[in-house]
């Protein structure tokens, strides 16, 4: 036999043995992703008693649609409706819109006109935007003729928006064409298409990075400012309008981020109409086209304040003074410690509750009242359009405003009539704002806060409709994190008003106080007067009865036990001038802080826990526990059927779904990222940015969007959605603002609540995100957010209450964020997850991390998270992932709680249980690729070792021959 041959076999098959072994190792870690890509199921269900099964209707969550085509058509229509309902007409001088000429002829300007922002860049996938209509096609649907030469010119010459990354900083550039070039090459065509010059100003944004406050080509280096070329364009068109070349100039703001409208201060620029269209989604341009010709009457209201000075808010003042132009900073002495990218950055929410309009309208009121410390504040030079602003092609008048109390005396009922005083039908949004009394030096209070709203049905010209809005009295409570450490009612007068927007509202209240002639006193009223401080009425949760007191002291640098010399001066209306941040807050580390930032905290054994039982079969199936209360002992019997390894697999292997577990007859589940659309959906339906949804102020629409997303999920065999995004538009530059609703927590909360109800009605688990304080994306992995508890509760956590409370959204999932609160990764924060969201809000679902396997290995750790209430890890886990904690009884109990949470949600709220009967058996199957790899590895091993064996035998034989010949 040829030894060379076997040596070659040893080499060749040895190589394949090793290579395939490594491949199997990594493939098993990422089995879920591979199975999904290859459309392989990791379990099969078998009905072992068909006769018994037939009596039970197992379609627990019926779908409204029969097939993909139906779902797709419904989605397209709804996405168009979302844009129609949410686009906001900011300005409309001289009735420039709608275009009433028959077959209007228009010229489209701006590189954005040929490169519309349909959707943001999001993790996990995208839709095929090439299938969507471009702006020209959308306009032509309404017989608007577009200047084709100009359109083509932009297509041929536009450089396109771009972005470059350097570490944590992503610098976006606008790259608009030079106006002189555009004009000189195209002006001969302007006269033929002169009914309107439509300018599209477009901005991008996306996950992973905030947009640029420096080094972009926008005004002063800011990406959301207009570039010189864009400004020249508007000036040039103004000039042409003056010379009667164009009849009107219309600007479309195609951006989820509020573009800075500084040009409104420029006398050389005169635009007639401005319409905010956001990221339009797949079918929003059709709605924009409809709005331009008056087929739809704009009815959206701003969900954010639009400003002329992008850096004017206190949040931005501290942000923009960092060297890098991003929010995150390194601790000043971080070089003295052995830190990494996940623990050396921080940011301070120095503005407290004064986010968005809460800042602008409050400082405005203080300025009007002549309060000390206001400083120089010119509202009109800073604010372009206030929160809640939005025009219509008609006009509305309010009358018969009155406020009463409900029978239970726990809410105010605001009533009024809305009359359409114009010539065309339209919808209005009635906005109710409240004011709590501010005691100087006491608990911070915004001068107005949105407390309720209602979108009217379509009101015909000349018609009147009554509107009724309930405002819970609890809305007037403020959180006192310093003295009373709970919710309070300060002494003083409490107001309610209706306004066209937040600025209108504060003017009404000022008028009521006799301090302003601008507002209407008749639309404001004092609803109650507190003679003295009340720190009892709202000191317990209205959802659960849990006592409410400070839980987040360690996330406020001023009360953090290991703060050392660090201190923050939060913005206070007691003295705007002195407390307005002039630079970013500098913090430094000390040894104890560094220790707090470390992971793998010691697991303290809790004597209340008894040892956990495993692998005891009671013959139960998960479906049998559907509708069984969470605390019923049957759940213990079911959990006892599982092994430690199965629980480990379920908890740690939660990347886009959960694993099949045969011992409890659980099928695997599948989750999709969102929130504006399902990533990788067969329908290719993308909705506009969430800010547009919120701008509709139409909660019925939000519910229908939720229902649709549930159907979209179902047709893609998805049963959970990572969405909605409910962080706050704290700044104008937040990279993921397109995935969040608003700067206002109530509007965000209502929108979330309705979307979640719709989604979950289809058996798709809603997983709102990101809990908590994920308002910035650069350095999101581990950035420590320091803030005071008043801001945390009143602004950032309030939407999560709406999302998760049983009486409200009742979401059955919730995703924790990448960042830290103080030194704690939020997924390891018992204070947030357990104390506040579970115990106070009443959340009964499961917590899932953000992408733990992405870059969270160092700090999104199993032990820290599970011990603090995290139930599911969005990562590639395994049966052995938690083996090092097996000896801890406390840890095993926490694992059991996590398993219980997950199984409870799946049993009761997930459409994966559709078709599962008490007689169904779930059998986990090994995917064919795993078997194939094992076979190939085995073969390689056999040949490899076999070859070695043969070589050995040949040597032995040779030796014997030699010995024999010697003898």
């Amino acid at each position, binding site marked *: 036999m040829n*030894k*060379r041959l076997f*040596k070659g076999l*040893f*080499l060749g098959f*040895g*190589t394949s*043995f*090793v*290579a395939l*072994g*490594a491949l199997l*190792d*990594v493939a098993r*870690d*990422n089995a879920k992703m591979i199975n999904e890509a290859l459309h392989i199921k990791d379990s099969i269900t078998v009905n072992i008693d068909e006769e018994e099964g037939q009596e039970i209707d197992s379609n627990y969550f019926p779908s409204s649609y029969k097939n993909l085509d139906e779902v797709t058509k419904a989605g397209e229509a709804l996405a168009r409706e979302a844009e129609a309902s949410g686009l906001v007409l900011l300005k409309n001088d001289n009735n420039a819109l709608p275009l009433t000429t028959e077959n209007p002829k228009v010229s489209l300007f701006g590189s954005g006109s040929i490169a519309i922002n349909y959707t943001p860049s999001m*993790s996990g996938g995208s839709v095929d935007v090439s299938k969507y209509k471009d702006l020209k096609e959308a306009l032509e649907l309404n017989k608007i003729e577009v200047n084709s030469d100009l359109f083509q010119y932009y297509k041929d010459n536009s450089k396109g928006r771009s972005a470059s*990354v*350097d*570490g*944590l900083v*992503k610098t976006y550039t606008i790259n608009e064409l030079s106006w002189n070039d555009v004009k000189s090459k195209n002006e001969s065509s302007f006269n033929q298409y002169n009914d309107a010059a439509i300018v599209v100003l477009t901005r991008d944004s996306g*996950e*992973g*990075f905030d947009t640029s406050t420096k080094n972009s080509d926008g005004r002063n280096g800011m990406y959301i400012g207009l570039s010189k070329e864009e400004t020249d364009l508007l000036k040039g068109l103004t000039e042409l309008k003056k010379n009667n070349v164009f009849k009107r100039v219309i600007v479309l703001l195609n951006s989820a981020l509020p573009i800075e409208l500084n040009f409104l201060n420029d006398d050389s620029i005169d635009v007639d109409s401005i319409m905010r269209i956001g990221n339009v989604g797949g079918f929003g341009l059709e709605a924009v086209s409809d709005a331009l010709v008056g087929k739809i009457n704009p009815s959206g209201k701003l969900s954010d304040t639009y400003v002329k000075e992008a850096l004017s808010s206190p949040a931005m003042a501290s942000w923009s003074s960092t060297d890098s132009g991003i929010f995150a900073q390194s601790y000043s002495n971080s070089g003295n410690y052995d830190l*990494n*990218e*996940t623990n050396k950055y921080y940011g301070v929410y120095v503005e407290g509750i004064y986010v968005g309009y809460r800042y602008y309208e409050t400082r405005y009121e203080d300025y009007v009242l002549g309060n000390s410390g206001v400083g120089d504040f010119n509202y009109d030079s800073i604010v372009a359009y206030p929160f809640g602003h939005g025009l219509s092609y008609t006009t509305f008048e309010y009358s018969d405003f009155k406020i009463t109390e409900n029978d239970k005396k726990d809410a105010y009922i605001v009533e009024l009539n809305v009359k359409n005083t114009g010539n065309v039908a339209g919808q209005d949004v009635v906005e109710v704002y409240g004011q709590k009394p501010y005691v100087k030096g006491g608990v911070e209070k915004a001068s107005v806060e949105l407390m309720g709203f209602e979108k009217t049905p379509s009101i015909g010209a000349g018609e009147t409709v009554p509107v009724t809005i309930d405002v819970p009295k609890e809305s007037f409570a403020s959180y006192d994190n310093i003295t009373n450490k709970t919710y309070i009612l300060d002494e003083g007068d409490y107001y309610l008003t209706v306004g066209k927007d937040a600025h209108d509202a504060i003017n009404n209240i000022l008028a009521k106080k006799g301090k302003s002639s601008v507002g209407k006193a008749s639309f404001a009223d004092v609803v109650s007067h507190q003679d003295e401080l009340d720190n009892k009425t709202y000191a317990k949760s209205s959802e659960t009865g849990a006592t409410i007191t400070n839980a987040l002291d360690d996330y406020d640098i001023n009360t953090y036990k290991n703060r050392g010399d660090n201190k923050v001066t939060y913005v206070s209306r007691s003295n705007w001038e002195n407390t307005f941040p002039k630079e970013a807050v500098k913090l430094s580390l000390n040894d104890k802080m560094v220790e707090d930032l470390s*992971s793998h905290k010691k697991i303290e054994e809790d004597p209340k826990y008894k040892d956990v039982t495993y692998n005891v079969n009671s013959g139960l199936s998960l479906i049998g526990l559907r509708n069984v209360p969470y605390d019923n002992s049957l759940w213990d019997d079911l959990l006892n059927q599982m092994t430690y390894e199965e629980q480990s697999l379920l908890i740690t292997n939660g990347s886009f779904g959960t694993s099949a577990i045969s011992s409890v007859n659980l099928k695997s589940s599948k989750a999709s990222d969102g929130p504006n659309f399902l990533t990788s959906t067969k329908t290719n339906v993308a909705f506009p940015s969430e800010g547009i949804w919120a701008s509709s102020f139409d909660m019925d629409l939000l519910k229908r969007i939720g229902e649709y997303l549930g159907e979209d999920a179902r047709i893609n065999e998805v049963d959970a959605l990572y969405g909605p995004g409910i962080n706050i538009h704290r700044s104008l530059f937040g990279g993921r603002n397109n995935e969040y609703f608003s700067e206002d927590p109530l509007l965000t909360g209502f929108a979330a609540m309705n979307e979640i109800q719709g989604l979950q009605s289809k058996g798709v688990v809603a997983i709102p995100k990101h809990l908590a304080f994920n308002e910035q994306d650069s350095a*999101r*992995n*581990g950035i420590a957010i320091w803030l005071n508890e008043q801001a945390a509760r009143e602004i950032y956590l309030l939407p999560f209450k709406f999302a998760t409370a049983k009486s409200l959204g009742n979401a059955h999932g919730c995703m924790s964020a990448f960042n830290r609160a103080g030194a704690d990764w939020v997924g390891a924060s018992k204070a947030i997850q357990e104390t506040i969201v579970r115990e106070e809000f009443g959340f009964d679902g499961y917590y899932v991390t953000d992408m733990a*396997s*992405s*870059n*969270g*290995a*160092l*700090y999104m*750790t199993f032990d820290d998270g599970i011990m603090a209430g995290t139930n599911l890890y969005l990562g*590639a886990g395994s049966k052995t992932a938690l083996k090092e904690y097996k000896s801890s009884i406390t840890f095993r109990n926490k694992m059991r709680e996590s398993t219980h949470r997950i199984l409870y949600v799946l049993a009761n709220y997930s459409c994966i249980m559709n078709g599962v009967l008490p007689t169904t058996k779930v059998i986990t199957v090994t995917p064919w690729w795993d078997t194939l790899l094992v076979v190939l590895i085995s073969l390689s091993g056999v040949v490899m070792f076999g070859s*070695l064996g043969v*070589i050995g035998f040949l*040597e032995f034989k*040779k*030796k014997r021959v030699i010995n024999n010949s010697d003898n």
Partner: protein
Amino acid sequence: MKFVKRLVNLPILFLGVGIVCGLVALIIYYATGINEFNDTLSPLCLGFSYAAIILGVVLVLARLFGVDNLKHIGDNFDILVVTDYLFGLAAFLFFITSKVNYIANVFVSIDGTTFDPAFIMTILFYLISFVAILVSSILYKKIVQENKE
């Protein structure tokens, strides 16, 4: 001198290069392997790295002391070098598999993560290591064959 002469032998030189590169890769891995994506080092990568280095050193010593010339061992010395190559290959592959999340994050390019120099150096040294040992095994095979003829 005899010892030096025994070491100045192409296969052994390649083997030496492989060992040294493997050792360098291991050191860099120890120093930089823990990051935001990996909170522990891969035991399989470490194990195979040690195995490759130790076996490699044993083989060099065997050559040094003329063990590779002994009957039966000499004829099959190349197999031992192949075994060493397989250990080196395994170390390299298990290093890569332990970094799959990191690699994926770079390609998805959401967080701006890039391949850092330490990662690139580790890959390079592991790669050179097992390739050098493979070359050594092929050269040894040739020598064994030539000796037979």
